[in-house]
């Protein structure tokens, strides 16, 4: 008798053609996604792109007009699915007059934890968020960064397998932001599947192995960072050449070489780094002084700009 093949583990998160309208505004216009186990998907897009509505649809706080969300094969609204999801909202969704420990106790109980498992979960949260020494401080006395970390801990106290982080670094200083990155990396190290929304491309680049660019309620591109850049720019890079501001023919010279001049900086697309040498030779030949020169590989921001014609933080 042939051995039975093990049943395939359901995909952690499957989103199928979700549409959500608020009156005349379409916040999500038919998004489909699959997020695989242990993956970290970055939802990158400007404010108002539909990222938060998508996240709120996943956790059941927004009822889509059409489409479906399944968590490990279960409808997202089912108790089993809710148990697998941990949501950290953008807002500081905490009780300001309770201590950090009391907040964790409350949100742990709301998730059904009791007794020893609750105590252990609180302890894990406090250590993960580096708040053990401020556990008994009233929340409103904590710094902004500490509140953010506690906000994350409160959302994940039940140790869900899927973690949804909605702009968790909003309004924090660079040091606290770094701390939060380390917390997310620790989660990934523990095997969590992470969905991370941000409009900071450096966060998406550092933390996520796949990125979905969201604009006007749609996913306009999806893949790893390198795949997205390659899709938009191929192997092309940008050469940024600062020219002597006094040169009278700089604009015409830049245009004749296929570039554009902005604020005294000539931008040239190049396919190979070796193309830089020919640009420098041409400048020398035409008596133009080059003050400095940078070779820049396109990044996610460039991809977004190319795809939408707008800056990511507009």
């Amino acid at each position, binding site marked *: 008798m042939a051995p039975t093949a093990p049943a395939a583990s359901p995909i952690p998160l499957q989103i199928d053609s979700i549409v959500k309208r608020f009156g005349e505004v379409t916040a999500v216009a038919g998004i489909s996604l699959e997020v695989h186990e242990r993956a970290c998907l970055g939802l990158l897009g400007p404010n108002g792109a539909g990222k938060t509505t998508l996240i709120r649809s996943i956790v059941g*706080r927004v009822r889509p007009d059409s489409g479906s969300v399944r968590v490990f094969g279960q409808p997202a609204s089912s108790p089993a699915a809710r148990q697998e*999801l941990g949501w950290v909202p953008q807002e500081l969704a*905490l009780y300001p007059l309770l201590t950090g420990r009391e907040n964790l106790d409350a*949100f742990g109980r709301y998730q*059904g934890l009791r007794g020893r498992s609750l105590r252990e979960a609180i302890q894990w949260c406090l250590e993960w968020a580096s708040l053990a020494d401020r556990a008994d401080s009233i929340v409103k006395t904590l710094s902004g960064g500490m509140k953010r970390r506690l906000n994350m801990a409160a959302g994940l106290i039940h140790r869900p397998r899927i973690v949804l982080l909605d702009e968790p670094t909003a309004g924090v200083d660079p040091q606290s932001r770094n701390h939060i990155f380390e917390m997310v990396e620790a989660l990934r190290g523990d095997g969590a599947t992470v969905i991370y929304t941000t409009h900071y491309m450096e966060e998406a680049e550092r933390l996520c192995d796949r990125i979905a660019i969201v604009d006007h309620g749609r996913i306009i591109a999806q893949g790893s960072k390198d795949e997205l850049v390659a899709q938009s720019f191929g192997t092309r890079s940008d050469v940024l050449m600062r020219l002597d501001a006094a040169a009278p023919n700089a604009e015409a010279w830049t245009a004749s070489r296929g570039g554009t001049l902005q604020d005294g900086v000539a931008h040239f697309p190049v396919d190979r780094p070796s193309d830089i040498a020919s640009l420098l030779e041409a400048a020398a030949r035409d008596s133009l002084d080059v003050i400095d020169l940078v070779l820049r590989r396109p990044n996610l921001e460039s991809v977004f700009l190319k795809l939408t014609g707008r800056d990511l933080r507009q």
Partner: protein
Amino acid sequence: MIATIVRNGFRALRRDRGALVLCFVVPVAFFSIFAIIFGSMSGNSTPRVHVLVVDEDHSVASARLVRGLHQERALATDTRPETKTGEPKPPEYTAATAEAAVKNGTAPAALIIPAGFGANPISFTPGPGRQPIRILHDSSNPVAAQMVAGLLQKVAMTSLSGSMAELGTRYLALASGGLTPQQRQNLDANLARIRELDARRDAQSDAGAAAKGDNTGGLVAVETRDVVGENKKNSMIAYYAAAIGVMFLMFTASGAGGSLLDEAESGALDRILSARVTMTTLLAGKLTYLALLASSQLTLMFLWGAAVFHLDLFTHLAGFFVMTVATSFTVASFGLLLASVSHTRAQQASLATLLILTLSAIGGSMFPRYIMPETMQKVGLLTFNAWAIDGYTKVFWRDEPVSHLAPQVGVLLGAGVLLFLAARHFARRWESV
């Protein structure tokens, strides 16, 4: 500079609907309520004092006095309990049944005309041989007994004119050393005319209000007795503990219920509802918290009343417990409803102020309902303040058993359930969008 500050102030006020309502709507609403309650008291709708009349004498004089009391516009007299539909007419009140009726709050006073009153109904001087009319009253309504006593003298003067004339004749005979036969004949003829006038007046169903008299006179002997609060040290403590307690309970519940709005604003509500907590569970939790808070507040209030004002709390614990549970539940539901219908804290605060002050004014938390016009007293029953105060009054003032609290407890619990269901309905907007 000052103009800019003033302009900014008005701009901000214009955009803050809550502040606008507090500033302009609440005072006008309050003025209107007080104007209705007190303004009408100077007109024809002055509240009438309900008095039960018992005639044990059944003499001509007592019948005239009863008739005079009936015709007195400031009094609403009853000689027998109200006849229920489809049932035979109940017997007339006796001294005992009238006293029981005053004790259970049917009327604030009863007037008993004793047997033998008609033999010597009035006197210009105090002395033996007079049968005093007894006034039994409930001192939780201190106005009623005084009004009945005063009006009784007035009615005696106008309805017993024959008796007055006879008495005057006797005094005249005594003072003058005896009347001649001619004088006696003339006086008897005049007395006959006065009796004829009395009889004619009796025949008229509505003789109109009698002329104004001196209410402080002593034509008829009167004996008053507080049949409800005669053994109580302070008649109004229980009343005001309940009245003020309920009003502040409402403020507390609306403030604490507003935490729902704070949680909605901070995002905590979203987080809670995305966990294993349903909206019904959440509201039930909030309701329990608010009800416990309200119970604690009422308990503190009554303990303070017991400690400082000698309120007899400890012999009424069962009634106090029942009324406190019912009142706290209703007030907690009210607080939840206020929060669930409001979209912002400012909106909730102004709505709460308007509703609480209105309900308290109409429902008797600010001043007793018995001093209001009859219509307003009935309107007051639409507020749960009135039912709560009535219940506590039954417990602490009338010493009624817990079973007699059924109407008050029933209304309060029913209102509480309805308010909670309404709060649940309006809270749907937070469930998911």
